[in-house]
């Protein structure tokens, strides 16, 4: 009898275990409230003149290479004191990140600056993440979970990050002060950027505050094929009183011919209201934007954006002076060099090389276009004021930190060939941290910013496109 129980019991236990494994559900939002949740306007300014220099830091993808490069640049920002007890890193208002860069953004958001500066290196950069994940994948007790239809490798990865890196913190635990941390993933079905902000979760009638920060980082860095996409619940039937934004109604009704990109964004925004979209599947943010700059750029195009740059640029104080005097975009871009090894041979590249090129080349080309959009916007801004015979009320600084700026060809080659991995040898991590700090500090545009902050204006500054 006991043998029969044993024989029947195992498959039943297996089925139960498989059936139980599911991704952590994001909860419904009971009632939509503009004053609730993790959004820019709900974060306080750390000091009275915090808008005077408005800094947007965008952190690119690229695994640990990107995280270490970002960390180095952020160390350098923290070494630049701009007022007693206040550094440029304290002055950052928005951090918009994708993939590897999201580890740095998420960690800073969860633990704050002092722990970030002290422990990020040991907790993330020197951690053997790939080994740990591989061991979890190979552990038989995880096979049951992975056999479930609603639990994938991405979820297993998320549980590891949640426990070992982000301390099970949720978005509710993020301090309601700047910097505004924007972790960007990609909605696989519609190919659009999906940010872990309450504005984006409003569309799902879901409460971001109950979601773990690790889930945002994991979705943002879920490189296709290697990691399975992460799933969120969408609640299109829920009456959470979320009003569809007016800009989407205007764009859908009238802007198809005039501005197709705006129309497409509106259509993507509204797509979550479809009753057939019960779930949303998220993958690496790099698929929609591999340098984390598209969100901030949207802030320059749409006054209703989650990063409200247009209202800030128009903002006046009581004496009718513009509150924002400087807008700084620091783009920390850890893109690798082009791999031309295959061109030494007549033999066509193998399937792995072709798949890798297909996955990464469009991202990198798109990144260049994204930076160009920012540059052209700034140029037009300057021209418009010049045409009106006015001095622009704001100076723009576009600081693009990238390996190509490295003067030493050998060091440049070394940096550009560091692979996209989730663990790297310590000497490579050190080289990346050093490079992030050095290349930011050596940047001409960064030096221009520092001169402006010291009220010294050297030639050729600020950014004029």
């Amino acid at each position: 009898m006991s043998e029969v129980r044993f024989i029947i019991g195992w498959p039943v236990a297996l089925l139960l275990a498989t059936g139980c494994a599911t991704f952590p559900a994001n909860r419904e939002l009971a009632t939509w409230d503009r004053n609730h949740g993790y959004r820019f306007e709900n974060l306080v300014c750390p000091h009275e003149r915090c808008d005077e220099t408005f800094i947007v830091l965008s952190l690119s993808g690229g695994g640990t290479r990107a995280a270490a490069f970002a960390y180095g640049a952020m160390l350098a920002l923290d070494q630049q004191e701009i007022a007693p007890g206040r550094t440029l890193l304290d002055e950052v208002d928005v951090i918009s990140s994708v993939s590897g860069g999201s580890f740095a953004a998420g960690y800073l958001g969860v633990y704050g600056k002092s722990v970030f500066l002290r422990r990020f290196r040991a907790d993330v950069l020197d951690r053997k993440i790939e080994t740990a994940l591989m061991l979890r994948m190979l552990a038989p007790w995880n096979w049951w979970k992975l056999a479930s239809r609603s639990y994938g490798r991405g979820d297993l990865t998320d549980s590891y990050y949640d426990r070992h890196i982000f301390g099970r913190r949720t978005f509710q635990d993020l301090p309601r002060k700047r910097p505004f941390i924007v972790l960007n993933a990609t909605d696989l079905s519609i190919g659009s950027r999906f940010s872990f902000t309450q504005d984006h979760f409003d569309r799902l009638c879901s409460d971001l505050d109950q979601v773990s920060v690790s889930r945002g980082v994991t979705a943002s860095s879920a490189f296709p094929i290697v990691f399975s996409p992460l799933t969120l619940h969408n609640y299109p039937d829920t009456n959470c009183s979320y009003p569809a934004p007016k800009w989407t109604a205007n764009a859908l009704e009238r802007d198809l011919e005039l501005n197709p990109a705006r129309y497409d964004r509106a259509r993507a925004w509204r797509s979550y209201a479809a009753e057939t979209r019960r779930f949303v599947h998220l993958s690496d943010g790099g698929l929609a934007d591999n340098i984390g700059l598209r969100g901030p750029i949207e802030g320059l195009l749409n006054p209703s954006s989650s990063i409200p740059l247009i209202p800030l640029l128009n903002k006046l104080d009581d004496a009718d002076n513009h509150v924002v005097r400087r807008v700084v975009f620091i783009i920390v871009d850890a893109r690798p060099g082009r791999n031309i090894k295959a061109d030494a041979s007549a033999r066509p590249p193998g399937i792995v090389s072709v798949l890798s090129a297909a996955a990464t080349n469009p991202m990198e080309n798109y990144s260049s276009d994204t930076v160009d959009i920012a540059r052209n916007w700034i140029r037009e801004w300057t021209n418009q004021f010049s045409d009106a015979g006015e001095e622009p009320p704001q100076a723009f600084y576009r600081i693009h930190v990238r390996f190509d700026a490295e003067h030493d060809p050998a060091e440049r080659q070394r940096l550009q060939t560091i692979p996209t991995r989730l663990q790297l040898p310590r000497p490579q991590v050190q080289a990346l941290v050093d490079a992030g700090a050095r290349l930011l500090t050596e940047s001409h545009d960064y030096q221009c910013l520092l001169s402006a902050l010291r009220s010294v204006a050297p030639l050729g500054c600020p950014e004029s496109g």
Partner: protein
Amino acid sequence: MNWIKVLYPRRRCVSVDGTRLGYTNQPLLIGEDGTYSVDLGEPKNYSPQQHRPTVSGTTRRRPLELTFVPDWV
């Protein structure tokens, strides 16, 4: 990049698509080409209650001008 100037006899907040954009009687950056809902928020003591222009090709020197008239006029 487009600009509007909302004309009104007094200084009031200008709201675009429900977001506070700036003040009346000065050029305001509004953003990309497109259609926007522009009003002066509460109290609704002006007419029309809303402008809904399609904005394109404007500049800071030549912004699109939108006029609201107070009910007390």
